């Protein structure tokens, strides 16, 4: 992973650290929405919501279409997927670890006697 990736990943995690932005992402996972629509559930100004969207945009978690007047905000699923990649890595490392533990248990059981010695 190069530095650019790392920086983008940091930006994404930072962007998702905010509960309002996480709710925006969650809303967008159901489909694109305008700033007005996104601002609706929050007791904050439309301007504040726009700023949150900008942060998400900089982290490349969302994109905005230029053509329409409404400029709806879209989720960038590829970016979100990259974020969860660490979970797959975590799983892989844990799985590997426990398979090694299986092997250790197999070899100590095969060697025999260790249980009696210990207790």
């Amino acid at each position, binding site marked *: 992973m190069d530095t650019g990736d790392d920086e983008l990943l940091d930006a994404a995690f930072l962007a998702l650290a905010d509960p309002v932005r996480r709710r925006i992402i969650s809303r967008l996972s159901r489909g694109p929405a305008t700033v007005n629509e996104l601002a609706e559930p929050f007791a904050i100004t439309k301007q504040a919501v726009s700023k949150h969207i900008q942060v998400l945009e900089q982290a490349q978690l969302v994109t905005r279409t230029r053509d329409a007047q409404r400029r709806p905000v879209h989720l960038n699923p590829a970016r979100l997927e990259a974020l969860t990649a660490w979970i797959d890595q975590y799983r892989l490392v844990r799985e590997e670890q*426990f398979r090694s533990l299986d092997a250790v248990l197999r070899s100590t059981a095969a060697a025999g006697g260790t249980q009696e010695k210990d207790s």
Partner: protein
Amino acid sequence: MMSNSLKLTVPEGQPFIDYQREFDFPVADVFRAHKEPDLIVQWLGPRGLKMDIDHYDFRTGGSYSYLHTGPDGVAYEFSGVFHTVRDNEFAIQTFEFGGYPDVVSLEFLTFEDLGGGRCRLTGHSVYPSQEARDGMAQSGMEGGMTEGYERLDELLSGAAAGTSATGQPEAGKVRA
């Protein structure tokens, strides 16, 4: 031979990681593999990384510190204290990755006898925040991932059962 699968939960919006894994071995054996340093070195570290234990005192009030060193000579340090250890039952420990100093997680480990010489290990990790969880788990895994895929390939091809019986880390490959 069917291997027991890992159940992993990484909840969104909560700073936890939960996992469960069953073993076709008695709970006392699995507990002992967590307690004895000469057994720990055989499984805790990802293969391809040399594991050097400074100390590993798996008992209430004990502590641990170890290094994982990659083939490139880069070392990853891990340390913590054992808050509670009850034989064949339960342990609480802290966990700190040297690359993320002061971001300490709490690990709850439950050993459960399933009868018939089988047992279940349940892990619950609590991080200071969700961002800490994501950042720490990610950096902590980088060392582990160095040869993770290679290892997985070997495991899938069935080579693991033959080679891991010696339980020796590949010290020859490592310049520490």
